[in-house]
C-alpha cells in the first residue's frame, strides 16, 4: 500500500532472533518497531505476521515468554532468547550470509566466476 514490503516468514524469524539477541528480553511491539527501524522503515510488521512467527519460535523452543511490565507501566508479554535460540541464530545467520554471498556473486554480472 505505502510501498513498504511485507516480510516473509523465514527471514522474519531470523530478524526476531537477532533483535532479541541484540536487545535482550523484549515485547512484541518492541520487536516490531526495532525491525521496522533497522530496515529503515522499508518493512512493515503487522500482527498477522509477527504473532504467528513468535508462536512458532516459542513452540520450537528458540524463545520463551513471560508477562512483565513495560517502561511506561503497561503489562506486556516479554520474549527472551533461549540457549537453543542462540545456536539457531548463529546457524541461520551463517546460512543467510552464505546465501546472500552466493546471490551477490551471482548477480555481480561480469567475468567474476571462480
Amino acid at each position, binding site marked *: 500500500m505505502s510501498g513498504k514490503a511485507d516480510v516473509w516468514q523465514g527471514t522474519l524469524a531470523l530478524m526476531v532472533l537477532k533483535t532479541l539477541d541484540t536487545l535482550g528480553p523484549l*515485547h512484541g*511491539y518492541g520487536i516490531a518497531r526495532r525491525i521496522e527501524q533497522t530496515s529503515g522503515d522499508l518493512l512493515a510488521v*503487522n*500482527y498477522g505476521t509477527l504473532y*504467528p512467527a513468535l508462536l*512458532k519460535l516459542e513452540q520450537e523452543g528458540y524463545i520463551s515468554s513471560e508477562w512483565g511490565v*513495560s517502561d511506561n507501566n503497561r503489562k506486556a508479554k516479554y520474549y527472551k532468547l533461549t540457549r537453543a535460540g542462540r545456536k539457531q541464530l548463529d546457524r541461520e545467520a551463517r546460512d543467510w550470509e552464505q546465501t546472500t554471498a552466493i546471490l551477490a556473486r551471482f548477480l555481480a554480472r561480469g567475468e567474476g566466476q571462480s
Partner: protein
Amino acid sequence: MRRLRAWLLRLAGVFGKGRRERELAEEMQSHLQMHIDDNVRAGMNGEEARRQALIKLGGVEATKEIYRERRGLPVLETFLQDLRFGARMLWKNRGFTAVVVLLMALGIGANTAMFSVVNAVLLKPLAYNDPDRIVTLASLWTKDGDHGQVSAPDFHDWHDQSTAFEAMAYWDTSVTAGPAAGYVHATHVTPEFFRVFRVEPIVGREFATEEAKPGGTGAVMISSAYSASHFGGNSNALGHTARMAGRTLDVVGVLPPGFGFPDKTDIWYPANSFEPETESRSAHNYLVVGRLKQGVTPEQAQTQMTAIGTRLTEKYPDSNQGKNVAVTRVRDEMVSNFRLTVWVMLAAVGVVLLIACANLANMLLAKAVARTREIAIRAAVGASRGRIVRQLATESILMALLAGAVGVLLALWGSRVLMALAPADMPRLSETGIDASVLLFAFGISLLASLLCALARALQALRVDLNKSLKQGTSRSVGGSVADRMRSALVVAEIALSVVLLAGAGLLMKSFLALQNVALGFRSERVLVMSASVPASDLNSARHATRFYKELLADVETLPGVLSAGATMAPPGHTASDGGYWINFLPKELNVSAPQAVFSVVAPGTFATLGIPLKRGRDFNDGDTYDTPFAAVVNEALAKAAFPGKDPIGHSLYCGLDSMNPMKIVGVVGDVRQHGPAQPPSPEIYMAFQQHPLPATDLSVLVRTSFEPSALSEALRGKVHKLSADVPVKFTTMEASLTENVAGPRFRTLLLGIFAGLAVCLAMAGVYGVMSYVVGQRANEIGLRMALGANPGDVLRLVLRQAAVLTGTGLVIGLAGAAGVTQLLTSVLFGVKATDPLTYVAVVALLALVALVASYIPARRAMRFDPMVALRYE
C-alpha cells in the same frame, strides 16, 4: 526433534483454549496501546493515533485465526468439533438415536454372539503345543471316501514304516467306575500318545516300560481336574489307586490342567497291557493321532501314508482291499461336522445385519432429507463438501460406536443362549466367550455397518442443489429423485435378502420335519435307557459281568409298570462296532476283506422292548449261553444283501467282534436306522450277550414302561446297587437320546428360522416406511386426483401398484440369489432338494403377503385424504 516438540505443543494447544485465547487478546491489546502511546508521543491526537495504529496492524480477527491454526491442529480440532456437534445432534434427536442404535445393536449383538461361537469352535488355535502339527490318521475307505477306525496291525505298520511323524499313537475310550460308581471317561493309549500332544505330567511320571508292555502290570495317569476332585490336589494323587476294568492300578502321574484329550478324559492307561489289543487286520477298533515332524506338511505326510497304504493293500489284499490312509489336521477333524453349520449361521446373521443396515440407511435418508436445509445453509456459509460429508460420517460413526458397545453387551447374553441351543457334542463350544478378537470383530462390523448406512446419506447430501433447497421449505423432498431411488433400491435389497434367508430356513425346516418323520424302525416312546459298565478284565470276569445283567434284567421285569426289558451294546442312533462278516465259510487267511455289517450284542427281550418286529425265526433266549452253540439274529438289510431270495435261518455266520466262533442265524428282525434318521439302515448282526461276554460288559439296559420312564430310574439304580456297588450307571430316555441325535439339524433350523423371522420383520418395516413416505410425498397428487374424480379404489390401486413393483423386483432378485446360495445347504438337507419348488412358492407367497400388509396401511391412509386439504396446500 524440534518438529516433534512443536507438534506435541500444538496437540496440547487443542485443549485449554480459553486461557490462551485471553492471553492472545491481552497481548495484542497491549501491543496496540504501546503503538498508540508512541503515536501520541509523535504528536498525533488520541483519535488519530488509534486510527493509524489500527490501520498499521491489520485485522485483529484474521490474525487470531492464523494464530489459532498455528497454535493447535486444525484437523483434530475439526474432528472434535464434528464430534461435539454430532453428539449434540444425536442428543437432540434422542428418540431417533435410540431406535437406530438399538436396531443396529441388535444386528451387531447377534453377529458378535455368532462370531464368538465361530471363534471358539473354528478359529482359535487348539490349546495344545504347536497344534497345527497334530493330525489324525484314519482308515480311508476308497469306495465312498469315508474315514474309519484303524486296526491294530495296520497301526503298527503305519507307525513303523512312516518317517513323517515325530510320534504316533492309537487310543480308544472306555468308561470306568469312580469311587462313587460314577461315570469317568477313561482312555487307553499307546506309549507315544503324550508325545503327540507334547504334554508331560506335572506331578509324577509317565508309564514305565514294565507297566505299558503287553501283559504288563498297568498304571494310570489322571487329569488335574480328576486329581483335584478325587484326591484333593496333585501332590496327594500319587500313591493312590484307581479301579480300572476290575483291577486296582497305581496313579503314577497327573497331567497339566486343561489337558483332557479325547473329549474330557480323566484317566489314561496303557493300551495292550492288561487288555490285549485285537490282532485282526479287519477289526477296526482304534483311533490314531500323530505329530508331524518339524517342517513336514500334512500333504507330504498324506503322500507318504498313501504309499504305505497302497503297499499294505498289495501285501494283504484280503483285508486291505479298498482301504488306505487319511491324514487330517486334528482341528479340521474335530469340527468337520460343524464347520458348514457354523459358517452358514454366521453368513445368515450377517445378512440380517445387512437388512438392518438397509433399514437404518432408509431412516437416516429420511432424516437427511429433513436436514437438507441445514446442510444447504452450511454449504452456503462456506463449508466444503468434504467437510459436510465428514460431519455426517462422524455422526454415523458415533452412532455405530454406541451401537457396538450395546451390541457387545447383547452378545454377552446372546453367546450364552447360543451355547445352550447348540448341540452338546459341538467341540470346544465351552470355550465360547468375548475375547479380544471378538471385540475387534464387533468394532469392525460396527464401523462397516455405519459406513454402509452413512454412504447412502452422504451420496444424497452431495447432490443437494444449494439454490433449490434454500428456496424450498422442508415439508417437501429436495434432491428427491436421488433419495427416492436410493430408498427403493434399499427396500428391494431388503426383500431380496429376506427371500434368501427365508428360503434357507424353509428348506431346513422341511428337512427337519422329514427327519422327524422318518420311520426309525423301532418305537422310542416310554423307554428308559440305563448305561452301565461292569468292571471286567478277562474272559472270566466278563462272564461274571454277563451274569450281573442277567440277574438285573430278571429283577427289573418284576418292577411294577415295567412292560419289558432288554439290554444292548449300542442303542439305536449309536453304533459301537462294525466290520466284515462271512457266511457259512471262514477262509483260512483270517484277514479277509468281506461285506461289512454293524455288530451289536443284545440280551433277550431287547427287540420286544424297542418294538423291533421279528420277521422270521426267534429272538434270543436264556438258553443261548456261552456253552451252547452260538446264535445270531440278522436284520432284513443283511438278509437281503447276503441271502437274496433265500431264507437265512440255519446258515452260519462269522465275524470278528471278539471271537471267530461260528454263529447260527436263528432269526431275522426289521431294520433300524442305527446311524440316526439321516442315513439308511446298514446290515446288522445281533449276537447273544452271554455268548460274547467281553463286549457285553458295557451295555445299555432298556426298559419299556407303562408310565413316564424316567420315574423308574431310582428304582432301577436301587436294583443295580443291590447287585453290585462297583457298577457306574447313567440314565436317559430313548426319546431324549433321539432328540440329541437331531440336535445339529434342530440347531440349524431354529437359528436360521429366528434369523429369517427377523429378516421378514425388518423387511416389513422397510416396506412400510418407504410406502408411508411415498404416500406422504404424493399426498398432493393423490388429493388432486381425488378432486378430479378418482375414487378410493383407484388410489388404493395406485399405491399398491408401486409397492408391488418394489416387492416384485425384490422377489425376483431374491429368488435368483436363493437358488444359488441354497446349494451350499445341499449336504445338510435331508429328504428335500435345494431347489424344492414348494418351499420357494411358500417363501414368495409369504413375503408378498407381508409386503401387501405393510403397504396396505399407508395406502388406506392415502384413501382417506381430503382433496380440499391438498388443493388448499397448493
